């Protein structure tokens, strides 16, 4: 056991003395994380939570109850993460802001809008429309603002239809005379205007819930940093695997076998060395991003367990590549190729859902995808229970690959005198 441990420790020291390896293990993922942060605006924005803050301009020419209510809705606390409204009185200036791509939408509430809804004579009232002046280069954001506006207008229409229906049914049922209709309508209209309307109130209760979380905000770096660290973990495990073949080619492996150390202890030590190096790499990167970017990785025990499981799964891949290769150079080339492919498939650069369906299926064989899923869970405030699936998947992956690799090593008589 001690021999195995010592061989592992020796490999760890060798890895961290190799400047070329350090470039790949630590410097590259760290710099790429910074690069990703720069291009996504993580380091240039005060808000790292992903709030949309869609800029909109509201021109309230109505200056009446409904116009004011609409302004209030867009300024409500509930929509604070979605929209960033500015109030204006100049419709033409608001349209110009859209035309110059300075804002997403200009909502122009025309004069007399409220009156047109609560007109004394509904049948003769003019249909005054709210103008939704949208920026065609921002269709998604404009669509979100339109949804909010549609919701408001549906409520307004509901009140209008409700009022007319009420009066009509009261007349039909004989509860009021047709002469009283205007007075009743006016009274209802006045009631709507004078009482604060809850624009969220509906007949249907919407029970909302979110997956459990302890954190209030999630940093987008919590997706980027683990993605990069996991991608370059694949380099580290293939580097470790390459050292097995390099030691055999260099003659140090046969020399070890003339000492009172059996082949299982040697191979175990080499595998332990790969595991230690991978774990050290991940923990250093996690520590560095925590220190430099104040990144919250989540539950500490969960992070450590996930790191070990991810390194275990990745080590399995490293051994598998080594078992298939004939020369250290082959392990290096194939390992680098696998690192890059797993990086893409595992979601280090793009969300897995954005990849073709077949690629999404293959992402499940990468330790990157499972581990990234676990790290995201933890960043969202997940606990150990939320890691069950990723941990199981990574451990199973590691065990299966270890067994296959052991079989292949046995056939190749790799660790023989």
């Amino acid at each position: 056991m001690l021999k195995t441990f010592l061989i592992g420790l020796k490999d760890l020291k060798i890895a961290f003395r190799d400047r070329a390896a350090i470039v790949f293990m630590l410097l590259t993922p760290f710099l790429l994380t910074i690069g990703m942060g720069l291009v996504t605006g993580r380091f240039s924005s005060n808000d790292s939570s992903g709030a949309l803050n869609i800029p909109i301009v509201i021109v309230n020419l109505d200056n009446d109850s409904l116009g004011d209510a609409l302004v209030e809705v867009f300024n409500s606390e509930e929509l604070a993460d979605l929209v960033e409204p500015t109030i204006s009185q100049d419709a033409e200036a608001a349209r110009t802001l859209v035309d110059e791509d300075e804002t997403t939408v200009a909502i122009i509430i025309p004069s007399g809008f409220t009156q047109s809804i609560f007109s004394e004579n509904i049948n003769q009232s003019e249909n005054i429309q709210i103008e939704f002046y949208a920026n065609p280069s921002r269709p998604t954001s404009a669509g979100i603002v339109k949804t909010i506006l549609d919701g408001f207008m549906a409520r307004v229409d509901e009140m209008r239809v409700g009022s007319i229906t009420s009066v009509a049914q009261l007349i039909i049922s004989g509860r009021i005379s047709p002469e009283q209709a205007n007075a009743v309508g006016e009274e209802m209209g006045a009631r709507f205007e004078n009482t604060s309307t809850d624009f969220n109130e509906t007949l249907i209760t919407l029970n909302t819930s979110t997956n459990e979380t302890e954190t209030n905000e999630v940093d987008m770096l919590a997706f980027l940093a683990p993605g990069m660290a996991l991608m370059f973990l694949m380099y580290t495990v293939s580097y470790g695997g390459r050292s097995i073949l390099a030691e055999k080619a260099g003659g140090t492996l046969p020399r070890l076998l003339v000492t009172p150390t059996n082949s299982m202890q040697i191979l175990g030590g080499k595998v332990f060395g790969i595991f230690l190096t991978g774990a050290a790499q991940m923990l250093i990167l996690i520590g560095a991003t925590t220190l430099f970017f104040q990144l919250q990785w989540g539950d500490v025990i969960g992070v450590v367990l996930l790191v070990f499981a991810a390194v275990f799964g990745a080590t399995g891949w490293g051994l598998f590549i080594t078992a298939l290769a004939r020369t250290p150079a082959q392990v290096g080339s194939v390992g680098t190729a696998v690192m890059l492919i797993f990086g893409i498939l595992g979601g280090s650069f793009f969300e897995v859902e954005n990849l073709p369906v077949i690629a999404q299926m293959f992402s499940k064989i990468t330790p990157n995808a499972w581990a990234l899923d676990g790290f995201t869970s933890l960043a969202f405030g997940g606990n150990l229970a939320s890691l069950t699936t990723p941990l199981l998947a990574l451990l199973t992956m590691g065990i299966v690959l270890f067994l296959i690799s052991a079989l292949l090593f046995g056939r190749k008589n790799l660790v023989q005198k």
Partner: protein
Amino acid sequence: MKKIFAIAWKDSIIRFASSSELLFFIILPIIFIFLIAGGVPTGDEDNRRRLLVVDHANTAISQELVSELENSTSVRPDVMSIEEAEEQFESRRAAAMLIIPASFDIESIQNGTAQLDFRGQPNDIDSSVAQRAVETAIRKASSVMSAANMALEEAKARGTFESSEDEQAYFNAALETAKSLQADSPERITTIQGNTPDDFDYDPQANVSAGQLITWVFIPLFGISALLAYERQQGTLRRVLTTPTSKATFLLGTISGQVVMALIQMTLLVLFAVLAFKLNWGNPIGLYIVLTCACLAAAAIGTTMGTFIKSEGQATGLSIMAGMLMAMLGGCMYPLELFPPFMQSIARIFPTTWAMQGLLDLSLRGAGVVDILLEAGVLLGFAGIFFAIGVMRFRYE
């Protein structure tokens, strides 16, 4: 000339000594182009947020609700079984899910017991967007019921009903009136598309093909540094010193060989994009001007790197790192237009940015030879500066 050719040929033999070089030369770039270009949105598809919907009720009103969601401008409903929805939601493949319980029908709405379950991912803005869209759809689907309910309450305020049947009949009559009024309701919002100039030219196949082409050619050209370090480590550079070969001849041979190989690699990738995506790269002369200038710039940087880095291992690592970083920051992975403004300015210091700009000008903006001369000039500027540094610092030992 013969010497230059001999050096270039020798480098090609060293480079392709292992068949694994083909992996990086053509196989991986094609896999990456396929994976990324095959997955990124084209801009023509539905860009609304996906909302998982589980309809246990399957009643007229639940279908009306789904129909309202389909009309939403911000979400698109994806109706599926609860197992499938749970699986997708738990694996974070969707920001939100809506569950319509079996008890959801007209009666439950009328008596105020109708409930819907909405589940959103924590701290996910798409979840907030989806919730807004669901609330709007609920409002629209239930507005006539609300109106009828309001009419019933007004009637109750003016006297009681003789029986529950009378009350129900009153409600039903009010519902019909409300439906009729709703159908005749005028459109309250007029949508006008602004005159914003859409200067964000984006075509996923063109962007990804150009981006990957640059990435996968810049990395091996930066790898000239590893080639120089390898020869220095092996002592073969010292041996060249004993032959009547000048520094310039040696460097020219090394660089021209790598540049020619890079141009062959680029041609293969250009053809792949033409065959796979029917991509029009634009003016062919302009295309090869940009490609050649980009190759020269990358080769010059690789040469300069080779004069600073001592070992082959370090040179390989640093070449890949520099290549990936420059590709990322130069807009080869994500469109430059989506970068924060200050990063768009900083990106101009990278040759990858100019190479990308040139290729996109040709393929997306229909530029001609004259239009890409600026990009070509800047790339040649990079090449001149870095070649000068490289030649000045180059030592055989």
